């Protein structure tokens, strides 16, 4: 009887309460501190993107010329890869909730592998630019390009480390916190990609 009860408790999903305030932290997925981090990261990247867009007013010709060297198809492919990685991470959380540890780890492996592919393609893109002599000192466009995409890349690497840690201890709370960081990386890229690669071309 006790064993059956224990099993039932193990498979039970986290119960979400009706919050006292709409701002209550208790119903946020994962650790509330992760959400403070997510908000601050959006603000940091937002500031950098405003600086990027504002600088176009000062250097419109430089921006127009610089954009012709961007590899838009490769960046589009990388966006799809990161979105698919996010899908795997979301699936991993669902498996963790029903205590399917092996499937949780497999889904996390899928998310992590696609993260590695994203890094490889980004490095290829940097190499392509450097071969053309476009480095961080070339002009304002490329200074901000390397700064913002490089900072994002650092987050992807850090996200991979977090995914590896939660794969070792795949509890529901760990999974929600860890994958929230991964989805934040996804979310930031979804904003960076169109602003750098799509807006301002013919658009």
């Amino acid at each position: 009887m006790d064993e059956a009860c224990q099993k039932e408790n193990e498979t039970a999903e986290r119960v979400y309460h009706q919050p006292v305030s709409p701002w209550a932290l208790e119903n946020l997925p994962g650790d509330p501190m992760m959400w403070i981090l997510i908000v601050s990261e959006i603000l940091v990247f937002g500031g950098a993107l405003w600086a990027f867009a504002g600088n176009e007013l000062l250097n419109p010709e430089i921006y127009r010329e610089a954009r012709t060297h961007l590899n838009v198809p490769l960046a589009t492919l990388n966006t799809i890869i990161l979105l698919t990685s996010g899908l795997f991470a979301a699936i991993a959380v669902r498996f963790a909730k029903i205590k399917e540890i092996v499937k949780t780890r497999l889904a996390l492996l899928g998310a992590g592998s696609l993260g590695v592919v994203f890094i490889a393609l980004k490095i290829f893109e940097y190499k392509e630019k450097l071969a053309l002599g476009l480095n961080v000192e070339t002009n304002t466009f490329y200074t901000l390009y390397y700064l913002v995409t490089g900072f994002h890349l650092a987050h992807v690497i850090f996200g991979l480390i977090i995914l590896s840690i939660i794969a070792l201890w795949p509890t529901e709370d760990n999974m929600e916190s860890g994958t929230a960081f991964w989805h934040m990386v996804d979310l930031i890229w979804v904003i960076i990609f169109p602003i750098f690669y799509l807006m301002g071309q013919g658009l």
Partner: protein
Amino acid sequence: MDTNKTPSKSIQMNDLLKAWVVLVALTLLGYGLSLFSSELLVYVGPLIIAALILFKARIILTRYLGLTRCPAWLSMLTSMIFTLTMICAALLTYGSAALTQ
């Protein structure tokens, strides 16, 4: 030897797959738009791209992150992303328009 296997538990994935399909479709739509070059797109293009960013961000927040149970946080993050993208779109539209004149 115990041959009884525990039945495999299943999860609902349809909503996640639908979200992923929409996200990929919106990404490809954005790429498709960047292939066109017209004077009208100089003014309207950044707004369309900003709308695509908002749609995608909203899907990630609700479907992937599951923020539907925290409406205040969902509204705050959506508003932040809206402000961020609209200011970028306005600046880039103004910059592109000044260059074409």
